[in-house]
């Protein structure tokens, strides 16, 4: 059975791929995919005019073949580094052989497996035309990952970019209902239309589930041991009032982790901008949400 990235040993020689005869169609398709329309890669006359017996195989096409072979040899992996040198030309119609072996295996800080491979290609006359080195690691999404993938959390909430815009009409009954729920006293007289200071909670697209970018963090493969709102802040230019039509734009502004007494804490901070029907700024809010993960359990399971 073929070993995969979790089981492969140093020195393991992958089964050769080939010999395969490179087709002219491969070169034309690659030209379209890469934007390299240099004619001697697909035009026999151009190739001969340059002194080659046949069209010359694109170097990066050979790199792409090797990269896809690493993926098929080792299973689902990330390839954060791939470096290839083109030593000699290959020609359309010639039979190439692609091969590779495991040069080194290391463990990352938290036990992720890092596999370094040497790769090569040879042409039918035995000349080595390509050498490459690559670093393959177990996939971040796999169970072996023991770090919070902060960058992917940032991407999942579109950090820094507007994540959503929603329009809410503040109905008088909504404000009264809110005042009743918090046990407050309904205002009377000229200020009867003023909403409570915390009414902005009712206009938060995330609390309302109108904006839900939680899928990624909810499915992280670590035991969640708690979570909830960490803090809320509001700054008003004027109070919210019954009858306001408020446009809320949400933006995640911070994603960070902290070590807490109970586990690793993942903070996501979002800001809302509340504008009225005239486009005037009414309020800005900041809400911090925290999730606690037990990374020790996660590490114990995989070690």
């Amino acid at each position, binding site marked *: 059975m073929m070993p995969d990235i979790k089981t492969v040993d140093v020195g393991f020689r992958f089964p050769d791929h080939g010999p395969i005869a490179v087709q002219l169609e491969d070169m034309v398709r690659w030209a379209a995919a890469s934007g390299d329309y240099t004619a001697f890669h697909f035009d026999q006359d151009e190739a001969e005019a340059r002194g080659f017996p046949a069209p010359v195989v694109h170097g990066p096409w050979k790199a792409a073949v090797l990269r896809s072979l690493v993926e098929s040899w080792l299973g689902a992996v990330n390839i954060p580094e791939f470096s290839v040198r083109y030593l000699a030309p290959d020609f359309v119609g010639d039979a190439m052989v692609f091969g590779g072996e495991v040069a080194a295996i290391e463990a990352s800080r938290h036990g992720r497996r890092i596999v370094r491979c040497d790769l090569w290609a040879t042409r039918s006359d035995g000349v080595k035309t390509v050498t490459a080195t690559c670093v393959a690691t177990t996939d971040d999404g796999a169970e072996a990952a023991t770090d919070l993938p902060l960058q992917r959390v940032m991407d999942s909430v579109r950090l820094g970019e507007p994540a959503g815009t929603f329009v809410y009409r503040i109905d008088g009954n*909504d404000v009264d*209902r*809110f005042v*009743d*729920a*918090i*046990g*407050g*006293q309904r*205002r009377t*007289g*000229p*200020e009867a239309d*003023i909403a*409570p*200071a*915390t009414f902005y*909670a*009712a206009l938060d697209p995330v*609390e*309302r*589930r109108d904006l839900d970018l939680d899928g990624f963090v909810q499915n992280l493969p670590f035991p969640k041991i*708690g979570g*909830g*709102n*960490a*803090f*809320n*802040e*509001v*700054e*008003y230019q004027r*109070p919210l009032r019954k009858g306001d039509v408020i446009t809320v734009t949400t933006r995640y502004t911070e994603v960070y982790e902290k070590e807490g007494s109970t586990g690793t804490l993942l903070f996501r901070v979002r800001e809302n901008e509340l504008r009225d029907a005239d486009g005037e700024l009414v309020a800005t809010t900041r809400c911090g949400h925290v999730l606690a993960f037990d990374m020790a359990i996660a590490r114990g399971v995989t070690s």
Partner: protein
Amino acid sequence: MTTAIDLRMLEEGHELTPAVQFTTTAQLVRYAGAANDYSGIHYDLGYAHERGFPDVIVHGFLKASFLAELACDWAGPGSWLRRFATRYQGIDVVGAPIVCRGRVTGIRIDERQVSLELWTENAQGARTTTATGQLQLGEEDLT
């Protein structure tokens, strides 16, 4: 609009009269509806048990609301909070007494603004929510 506070008589450190809140599950459901916050931890006892809580827990925003209302009730008609920031330090379960307290930390007579710190305490005296607020008072009663 008139206000109950005489700013010239007010001193930093002045403590607001505390209020005690006893929540009920019905109130939490009511709040969930009013705020469109339907997280089950606030009304689903089975889920709260799964999460390791002895009972459903009070919305952080509801405790924040108690504190904001304490401030505005104290300041009287016409007052509103320009800034209000809350930090959730610990949970409170439904029905447990929540003591809401506040203290004046700054006074700006010309702007008619008062800064406050506010907090909730549980029965053991631990602060479960802390807040700061900047109150804008109503116009002075010149009569």
